[in-house]
């Protein structure tokens, strides 16, 4: 028994150290944001800045439209979440509960496109956006992130698993219209999976890179990811300011993740049950 306790302790220790190591790059980045240029070079790297400074942060905010980049990203991610939740909610319900053959074929088509990575068709999609004159706009960004095949699949699985046909039949007999049933009976029962999907969709758009990179080419239209990536290729940029800019993005997204962890993990874990 004693030996077992010792192995458990050892495993705990190993996992703890590994977990901290995984987080180290991020922790160091945030620490660097508040360091003076001299301290940044000191060895061993300090975890807590000896004489913390806000210079990096203020000079980044003066030099770059960081806040408006964050604003662009937020608008893009929120609208994308809204679109994906709406389309997945209704389409997932229909494909689960309306067993018409044509609908099954359409659903198979939805799923089949999920195999094709976004990178494969983003160039033609770019020209569609260009034709509409939506380059460098949030709606233009949105075009790439309006639907999610996995979202439809996720909602369909949840409808099949948790909403019995009898419930819907009963509502129909009571004279409920189809729209009313969807809105007042189905949606409330799907709150959990829809929340998981929302968190997933938000982070997907928030961290998008390749698509915003080609659609947003004007400095004012960048998302935060693109802005940061291009900001760091400049000549004169030093590490402190880069770290400060990165920390501005990192800290809120880690906080959001920790708060929404349950929803997120539920959503991501569901991607594994596709098979």
């Amino acid at each position: 028994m004693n030996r077992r306790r010792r192995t458990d302790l050892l495993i705990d220790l190993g996992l703890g150290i590994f977990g901290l190591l995984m987080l180290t790059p991020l922790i160091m980045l945030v620490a660097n944001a508040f360091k003076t240029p001299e301290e940044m070079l000191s060895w061993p790297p300090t975890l807590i800045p000896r004489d913390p400074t806000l210079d990096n942060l203020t000079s980044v905010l003066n030099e770059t439209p960081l806040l408006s980049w964050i604003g662009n990203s937020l608008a893009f991610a929120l609208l994308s979440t809204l679109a994906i939740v709406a389309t997945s909610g209704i389409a997932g319900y229909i494909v689960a509960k309306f067993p018409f053959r044509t609908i099954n074929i359409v659903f198979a088509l939805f799923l089949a496109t999920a195999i094709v990575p976004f990178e494969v068709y983003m160039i033609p999609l770019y020209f569609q956006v260009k034709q509409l004159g939506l380059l460098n706009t949030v709606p233009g960004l949105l075009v790439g992130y309006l639907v999610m095949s996995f979202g439809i699949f996720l909602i369909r699985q949840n409808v099949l698993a948790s909403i019995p046909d009898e419930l819907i039949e009963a509502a129909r007999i009571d004279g409920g219209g189809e729209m009313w049933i969807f809105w007042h009976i189905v949606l409330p029962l799907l709150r959990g999976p829809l929340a998981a999907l929302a968190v997933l969709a938000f982070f997907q758009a928030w961290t998008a890179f390749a698509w915003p990179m080609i659609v947003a080419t004007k400095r004012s239209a960048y998302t935060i990811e693109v802005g940061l990536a291009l900001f760091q290729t400049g000549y004169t940029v030093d590490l402190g300011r880069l770290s400060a800019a990165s920390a501005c993005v990192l800290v809120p997204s880690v906080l959001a993740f920790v708060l929404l962890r349950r929803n997120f993990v539920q959503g991501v874990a569901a991607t594994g049950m596709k098979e």
Partner: protein
Amino acid sequence: MLRRRRWRFAVMALLPTFAIFAWVRLYPIVQTLNLSLHDWNLLSKNKPFVGLSNFIELFGDRLFLTALGNTAIIAFGVMLLTIPSAMVLAGLIHYRTRSRFAGFYETSVFIPHVVSLVPAAMAWKWIFDAKLGPLNALITRLGGEPQSWLFDPYLSVLCVIILCSWQALGYAVLIFLVGFRNLPTSVYEAARLDGASGIQSFRFLSVPLLKPITLYVSVVTLISGFNVYAQAFVLASDAQGAPGRLVRVLVLDMLENSFRNYRVGYAAAEAVILLVIVLVLTGAQFALLRERNGR
């Protein structure tokens, strides 16, 4: 009558989603396939049909072959690094589920998977930095030779692999954890009664039982490895603003051909090759699964 009304509702409700799908998925996918057989310089009205000549040219294109090679090395490197370690980690975390720190283990491994890519890559860029980075400082302290991690053609690919693995690990661990939680406890119970050690039951029970999940996570990791772009862009861009010249990857080569060299058809052909790779990998996954079930 009732059936007709229900049918009409279903169609009306599905129509907007289907229209969006057709517009932002189906059409551009077909368009990619179509463009790959044409020559188009972005400006001209004409898009002459050139058959397979884009593909033939690609296989003599040194830059493309470098990109394909790098991308494949990165994808397989990330898979080889991530999958075994994720399985062991998930096994250990599952074993310590009742530990007070189980939540921390899971979260700390998962956070790199969700944080914004560019800031995270920036952190690693600093770590790898030849002059300012802590990695070289550490190596010097230990009496080693400092390396120019991000400027050496081999080491910079390794750096991209490390960054991508650091990010991919959390997803793999999470999926493996779901797998571990769904394994039948009775089998382990029996093994323990027969005197099997923890390591033995991991080796002889968990590994074979988790095979379908291993297959799934491996393919997902490989596919996202083939789509690598941002990581290479951030890590391997130099101060002169020539991003990603050092570690050329498929997506980068594709975007450069399309938007810098104005060869959209040629870039579409690259996209088609990426698609073929993904389809082959997915096909292999299903074939391996079926083979296993058939036995």
